């Protein structure tokens, strides 16, 4: 028995030739009320890099309202800092943005040093700058790969994880920890760089640069990638700034602002030659492109630092018991995800009285209710991916 029959012989489908077109027209003319659908994305969703829950109200496939629900990972660091001494707190703040832990430590240590009036020796500053830039590369490199995953390209994600490992090895070699170095001390860094590290570092930087070229070929020049990211999730510059969106997300909207260059001088950035990249479009593609250029720029900075690494001690003279004089200081730095700052209030004790932690992802994500409105569901994922947030950085 054959299963294929001419359509005209199927029961209920006896229609005259030519009438189908008008039937279709009639269906289109009726406005179907589908009702709004509430869709729960997360808390576990591959695009959320952790436990971000997104409640979106949909009309068909179009988002008409989005409400991020955060706090699944809230660890209360601002409270915990009040119960710890200054050296203990670096262990905590390692876990805020866990992909670039070293960069988290720097502003806090810097704040304590400013209050105490001590300055780390030049070699310590260079090592700090080196490791900050390495953690920036490690963080953003993962993004460069994962962004491919958001649009359905699997290979770049593997490249991202594979080549990031070279950088993590360097961080581990110098500090002993892949993700949580806890390497900064008030007054310097814990140790000098190990023997042979500089040679390894140069080799790894070569690999990273090659990898950036691969990403450029495979993703930036890819038609599907561009179709999915260009013109999607545009953040206007003024609105982004008023929301506190920072870092590459704001620079992709054409705001030429980088705290490494424009903020109060910190680490050794005023000795380095680097370019701050911006893009005028403000869409997902621009955010990707800016981060790609920034990774190359970071590699350039690392190579400059390796060439001109200062000699000397890596620790300043500090009291054995660290007591920070009373005062208040606000220190902000350009972290891989954006502006990170600590407002430290000291009352002269061995621990701070109050620490306000300003983390980049918190403000970057707070624009989501505005940004996601009117997008289609598949674009929600690419926009989330392109904002690049770490849940620990949102929830603190």
């Amino acid at each position, binding site marked *: 028995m054959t299963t294929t029959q001419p359509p005209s012989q199927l029961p209920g489908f006896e229609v005259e030739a030519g009438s189908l077109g008008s039937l279709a027209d009639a269906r289109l003319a009726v406005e179907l009320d589908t009702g709004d659908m509430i869709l729960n994305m997360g808390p576990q969703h591959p695009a959320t890099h952790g436990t971000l829950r997104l409640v979106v109200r949909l009309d068909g496939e179009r988002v008409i309202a989005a409400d991020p629900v*955060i706090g699944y990972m809230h660890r209360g660091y601002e409270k915990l800092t009040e119960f710890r001494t200054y050296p203990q707190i670096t262990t905590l703040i390692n876990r805020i943005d866990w992909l670039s832990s070293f960069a988290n430590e720097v502003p806090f240590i810097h704040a304590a040093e400013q209050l105490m009036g001590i300055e780390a020796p030049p070699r310590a500053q260079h090592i700090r700058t080196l490791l900050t830039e390495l953690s920036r590369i490690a963080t953003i490199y993962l993004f460069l790969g994962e962004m491919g995953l958001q649009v359905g390209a699997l290979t770049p994600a593997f490249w991202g994880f594979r080549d990031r490992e070279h950088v993590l090895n360097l961080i581990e070699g110098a500090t002993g920890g892949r993700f949580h170095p806890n390497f900064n001390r008030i007054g310097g860094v814990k140790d000098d760089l190990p023997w042979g590290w500089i040679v390894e570092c140069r080799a790894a930087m070569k690999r990273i640069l090659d990898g950036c070229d691969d990403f450029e070929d495979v993703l930036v020049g890819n038609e599907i990638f561009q179709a999915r990211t260009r013109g999607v999730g545009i953040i206007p510059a003024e609105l982004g700034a*008023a929301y506190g969106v920072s870092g590459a997300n704001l620079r992709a909207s054409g705001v030429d*602002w980088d705290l490494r260059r424009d903020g109060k001088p910190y680490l050794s950035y005023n000795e380095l030659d680097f370019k701050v990249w911006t893009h005028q479009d403000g869409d997902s593609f621009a955010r990707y492109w800016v981060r790609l250029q920034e990774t190359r720029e970071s590699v350039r900075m690392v190579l400059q630092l390796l060439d001109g690494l200062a000699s000397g001690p890596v620790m300043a003279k500090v009291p054995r018991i660290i007591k920070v004089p009373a005062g208040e200081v606000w220190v902000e730095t350009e972290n891989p995800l954006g502006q990170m700052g600590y407002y430290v209030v000291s009352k002269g004790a061995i621990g701070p009285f109050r620490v306000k932690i300003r983390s980049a992802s918190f403000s970057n994500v707070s*624009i989501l209710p505005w940004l996601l409105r009117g997008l289609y569901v598949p674009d929600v994922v690419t926009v989330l991916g392109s904002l690049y947030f770490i849940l620990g950085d949102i929830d603190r």
Partner: protein
Amino acid sequence: MSDEVVAVETAEADIPDPVVGVLASRFVEALGDDLLEWEDSFGTLAIRVKPDSWAPAAAFAKSELECNYLSFISGIDWQPVTRPDGDEGSDLSAPVQPTEMTFGVTGSAGRFQVFGHVQSTSRHWGVTIKSDVDETDPRIASWVAIYPGADWHERECWEMYGIVFDGHPSLRNLYLPGGFEGHPLRKDFPLLAREVKPWPGLVDVEPMPGVADADGGE
């Protein structure tokens, strides 16, 4: 009122950073008596305004001083840490803070303060704005109309300190679950984990017997 004006003048006498001085004089001009105090804190201007000028000060910073970027809004509780059994209470592991109420930069009128930091992405300056909040009925104007990003910061401050932001579209819990009672960042909210088991880490930094705190050099 008169001594507050004097405070402004004495602070102006020693200006290390010209930008801070210029910004401060702009605020003095715009807010007049509502600017209670200003100070240069490590190169960043900090001002304290009357509660009524909390929102106008931010609006002025945004429109006239090009501070288009909202960094954060938060609160602070100046009350000394209270321990259930007094100073010799169970939680001896936490760093000991002064027991009398002292205030930080630009002072405070009472226990609660809100403070926020706004800055300019084009001119690269910033200002920390502080304002006092009444202890019994903590409320202050919202910045949401000026900086839309204030939304989440104010929700966080509301749940952590119990400070109500008038004019905020929906003050609901951000981090904490809906039925949470209490305001965790207030100083009288105990850190229960520490009450149950003191943190052992502090042992390392306690002074050795016979060694004074001050001469702890290497």
